């Protein structure tokens, strides 16, 4: 059932709006040269930070479709009746969300880094840092989606919740993109792991709490 659930969520994302966060990521990355001017040196310095801001804002877009539609249509109730624990649902949702969000974002990071004039050696570090960080971002998005499912103005609330919680990931992710010798990549990986480990538990508890 878990495999079927992951396959279903992936299918729904690809058939639906999986390209939207990626398009949004590209748009935000494109806005940066317009906002700060075309000076290549300045852009090169802020490029990796710009990519991280773009990734964080892009992570917000899918939140409303991650959990709420399944709660409203009774799918979460039926999964529970079929003996799938809420924690397993949370784990499946994190996996499916990362599969349709992480790789696409990494692909979109390539043209974006070109637009921002990111130096080739920094590009490698940024891609690695994003690869390590996107599972954490996906886990965070699923947790926030479950916590806000069924609430009025959930989309805006989710933004206010997710962005502050993503700050540690942003600090170490941007650090690892900028300086390979700093050890920031290990700290980023630790935070990403923590988020991925916590996501099934938090999501499960949130799904159960939403039933009462």
């Amino acid at each position, binding site marked *: *059932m878990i495999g*079927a659930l992951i396959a*279903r969520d992936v299918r*729904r994302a690809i*058939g639906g709006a999986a390209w939207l966060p990626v398009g949004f990521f590209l748009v935000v990355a494109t806005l940066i040269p317009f906002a700060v001017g075309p000076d290549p040196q300045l852009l090169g310095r802020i490029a990796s930070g710009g990519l991280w801001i773009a990734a964080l804002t892009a992570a917000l877009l899918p939140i409303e479709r991650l959990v709420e539609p399944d709660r*409203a*249509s*009774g*799918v979460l*109730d*039926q999964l*529970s*009746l*079929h*003996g799938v624990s809420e924690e397993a649902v949370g784990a499946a949702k994190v996996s499916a969300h990362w599969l349709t969000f992480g790789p696409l974002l990494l692909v979109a990071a390539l043209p974006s880094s070109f637009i921002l004039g990111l130096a080739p050696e920094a590009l490698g570090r940024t891609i690695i840092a994003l690869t390590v960080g996107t599972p954490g971002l996906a886990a965070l998005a699923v947790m926030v989606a479950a916590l806000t499912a069924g609430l009025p103005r959930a989309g805006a609330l989710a933004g206010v919740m997710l962005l502050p919680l993503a700050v540690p990931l942003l600090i170490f992710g941007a650090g690892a993109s900028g300086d390979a010798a700093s050890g920031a990549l290990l700290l980023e990986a630790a935070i990403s792991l923590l988020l991925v480990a916590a996501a099934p538990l938090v999501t499960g508890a949130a799904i159960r709490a939403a*039933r*009462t």
Partner: protein
Amino acid sequence: MKPLLRFDRVSCRRGGRLLFEDLDLQLGPGEALHLTGPNGSGKSSLIRLAAGLLRAEGGTIDRSGAAVADEHLALDRELSLNRALAFWGGNFDRAMQALDLARLASVPVRLLSTGQAKRATLARVAASSAPLWLLDEPLNGLDADGVERLEALLAAHLEKGGAVLAASHGPLGGSWSKMELGS
């Protein structure tokens, strides 16, 4: 014989309001219970308690595997009906035939009418192998043919040693014991 559903002095509170208290009920194989009562008397809550989707304020609930049909369709709207039902597994082909849905197999779920959607939720229950069926207003939206088909399905399920708990304002054919809430 071991009951399929047993409530022992169960009380239920929703939004600070006590819906019922010290409620006992027992359903064994082949037994059917028709739940009645005015709107807001706790029929749907009782069904969700029986399904394990709500926690009781007090008392204990024992159940065996249950299948629920309520107002939630729980089928992916963009899929064809047979693919959407297939996600939940079980013998959905036979259930679709029993509810005269076979000719709608390739129709997307989002295009189903109210009555057809109701038949689809009932087919989801009929396809499952759960011995306990929990039906919340199963007659809503069904036409005369649909009611007849549902009654035949229920009779067959009871015959096989299953149990049914149904909340409904309408009359249900067959032999049902009755329970009235909020009286």
